[in-house]
């Protein structure tokens, strides 16, 4: 029996009004503007764009403001908005080799073409709280400049590949599968896995990647390269018959270089894991590369050790925080009838047990 129940409308409306008031906080404290969030909480904005799978810093900043800083809720808002947009098409694959790099480091080669460029990083900071910022002394001195020599910044894998020391990146010119158009089906090819990982929850990917480092599907990753910067996005315009640049995105790219003993068909060589994420999001880019590499065990002829990070079904089914939070949080909504039937069942079983005991 399904019983429809009405009610609670006034309570809901009042709850939402109170939420608005709480979101604003103490009115004596200046209100945050969307532009302030976009400029000063840029890494939160980046995370919401990456996991919302929609690049638009102003919208992500607005979502963060509306969600009171709850980033998973903000991601949810962005995903919901995205579904209202008509799709104009797909871009040509971005050329990260032509990136205007803010940051580019390699943990495998000290001296490499293009050099080690630290960029605006938290690395090497002492992680001491800066009370200067609390005292409203947030004005920053201008960053130092040095004459930049325009020179190509080739990918590390490119020069390892010249000697055949690393597997080729593989090819495939066809249209990749799209998670936003067709439900995830397993087994999932690498293109589909990469799409799922790029929009996956950062915390989930971080933990999985960490598990591979601790020995669950150990694959000895080195960060061959990490680069962060801006790349142009080009799209074929049907009205014109040629491709034009339609904008520019900040991206984080990480490629790992992993040990590989070789197999029956392949000589010993390094293998690769790949991470590419919207915005400056290097923790996630590195984690994505580690998990991508762990998921490739089958195509590389490695053993399945039962590690969670190797299990595509486990990883891909649980990586999306909007799906996860939707299912998790739905159990707090009214289940009165379901529970009533459970209650009746337990009472009946208890009554039967008592009768059998002769009590």
């Amino acid at each position, binding site marked *: 029996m399904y019983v429809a129940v009405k009610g609670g409308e006034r309570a809901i409306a009042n709850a939402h009004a109170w939420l608005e008031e709480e979101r604003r906080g103490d009115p004596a404290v200046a209100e945050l503007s969307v532009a302030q969030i976009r400029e000063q909480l840029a890494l939160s904005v980046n995370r919401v764009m990456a996991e919302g*799978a*929609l*690049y*638009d810093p102003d*919208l992500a900043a607005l979502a963060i403001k509306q969600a009171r800083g709850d980033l998973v809720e903000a991601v949810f808002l962005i995903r919901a908005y*995205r579904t209202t*947009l*008509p*799709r*104009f*098409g*797909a*871009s040509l*694959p*971005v050329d990260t080799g032509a990136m*205007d790099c*803010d*940051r580019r480091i390699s943990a495998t080669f*000290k*001296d490499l073409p293009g*050099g*080690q*460029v*630290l*960029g605006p990083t938290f690395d090497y900071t002492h992680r001491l709280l800066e009370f200067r910022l609390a005292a409203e002394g947030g004005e920053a001195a201008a960053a*130092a*400049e*040095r*004459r*930049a020599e*325009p020179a190509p910044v080739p*990918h590390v*894998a490119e020069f390892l590949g010249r000697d055949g020391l690393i597997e080729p*990146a*593989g090819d*495939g*010119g066809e249209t*990749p599968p*799209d998670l*936003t158009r067709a439900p995830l089906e397993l087994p999932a090819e*690498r*293109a589909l896995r*990469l*799409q799922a990982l*790029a929009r996956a929850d950062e915390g989930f990917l971080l933990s999985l990647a960490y598990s591979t480092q601790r020995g669950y599907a150990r694959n000895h990753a080195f960060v061959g390269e990490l680069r962060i910067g801006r790349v*142009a*996005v080009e799209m074929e*315009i049907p*009205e*014109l018959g*040629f491709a034009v*640049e*339609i*904008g*520019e*995105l900040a991206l984080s*790219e990480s*490629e790992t270089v992993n040990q590989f003993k070789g197999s029956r068909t392949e000589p010993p060589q390094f293998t*690769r894991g*790949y991470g590419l994420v919207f915005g400056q999001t290097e923790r996630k880019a590195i984690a994505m590369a580690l998990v991508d590499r762990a998921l490739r065990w089958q195509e590389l002829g490695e053993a399945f050790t039962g590690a969670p990070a190797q299990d595509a079904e486990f990883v891909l089914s649980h990586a999306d925080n909007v799906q996860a939070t939707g299912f998790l949080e739905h159990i707090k909504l009214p289940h009165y009838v379901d529970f009533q039937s459970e209650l009746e069942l337990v009472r009946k079983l208890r009554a039967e047990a008592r009768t059998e005991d002769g009590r």
Partner: protein
Amino acid sequence: MESRDADRKAWMGLLAKAPPGRAAGLLDAAMARPDFAWLRAPETGSVMVRGRAGATGAPFNLGEMTVTRCSLRLGCGTVGHAYLQGRSKPDAEAAALIDALMQTDRAGALQAAVLGPLAAERAEARRARASKAAATKVDFFTMVRGED
């Protein structure tokens, strides 16, 4: 690609990457806007951005970006298009107008008053950022280890 197409590709790319409101401001400072008819009024949608596995391998879908596009026709029949990142309809309108006008005898004036300054400002912004990055480039030096 013909050189006319290559020129158009270059100015459309420049307009797409201009800061919000900048191209419209330069256009209005340069000339009165001509009359036009919409072929497609500005609309905001998304474009799926693709990457490649391992930077050079098989393509995959990275995520979408917001894009606003429009098409218009000037009184003389010239058609202008715009595809711009973001959700600004006024910016898309200005970009499509400039795209159309660049195919007319106003091209020289627009090149000088709009596209030239946009290109110079973009070059300067890129130079400044590249210079900050260059200042964080590591210069390694080897420590003397004791033996001869």
